[in-house]
C-alpha cells in the first residue's frame, strides 16, 4: 500500500504520544494524529506538519511509535478529460 501523498490517521503508542507531546508543546498527548504523508522508509513515515506561525516541515514518525493506521478509501473519485 502506497501511503505517500495521502491523508492518514495514525493511532499512537505511548512513545508516539510522548513524541507528539514534545513536538507540539501541547498539554494533552494525542492518541491519534491525522496527517499527510510525504513518504515512507525503513525507519518510519515522514509526515507533513504545519504548526501555527511556523513554516511547514517534515516530521519522521518512527514505525515503533505507531499502533495502527486508518486510511479513507476514495476509490469513487474520478476526474477526466478528452485528449
Amino acid at each position, binding site marked *: 500500500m502506497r501511503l505517500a501523498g495521502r491523508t492518514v490517521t495514525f493511532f499512537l503508542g505511548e512513545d508516539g504520544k510522548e513524541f507528539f507531546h514534545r513536538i507540539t508543546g501541547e498539554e494533552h498527548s494525542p492518541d491519534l494524529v491525522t496527517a499527510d504523508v510525504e513518504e515512507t522508509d525503513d525507519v518510519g513515515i515522514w509526515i507533513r506538519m504545519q504548526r501555527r506561525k511556523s513554516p*511547514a516541515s517534515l516530521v519522521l514518525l518512527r514505525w515503533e511509535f505507531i499502533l495502527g493506521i486508518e486510511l479513507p478509501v476514495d476509490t469513487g473519485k474520478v476526474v477526466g478529460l478528452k485528449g
Partner: protein
Amino acid sequence: MDISVRGSRSSAQDWVRAQQIPLNEIPPLDEQQKAAALQMRISEEDYARSVYAGYLSQQELLQRTLRFGRWLNARVGERTPNGCVDAVELDTWSGKLKVKVLIAREPVIFEVDEELVDGFMTTGSAELERSIFRLLEINLPQQQVARAS
C-alpha cells in the same frame, strides 16, 4: 481519447500551496468529505486544505496521463495502422495505468506500471521505452505489432 485519474494524492509542493492559500479560496467540503474529516478527527479546515492539495495534484496527474496517452497513441498508430488508444486511466491506489486500445474497433485492455511510465516520461530512457514496447508486443495481437527499434 478518454483520460482519467482515479483517486488522489498530493505532492509536497501542492500541499504547501494549499496550506498557504486563504481559506475562503479553498472549495468547501461536501457532506461526504465533512463526514470523512469527522471520522479522522481532523478539523474541516485542515481536511479542506488536504483535499485541495489532492485536487491540485490530480490535475497534474491528469495532464501527465494525457501526455503519455498521446505518446502511446502515436506509437500504437505507427505499429498498428488500424489501432489507436481509446482510453487511459491512472489508478492512484494500484499505481497502474489501465490502457484501452482499439484495433479494428476491437478493444484490448492492459495495464502499465505508473513507475515505469513516470520513469520514461521524466528520463526518456531507451530501456524504459523498450519495456513499454514489450508490453505492446505482449498485449496486442502479435502480427499487428512490429518490434521496437
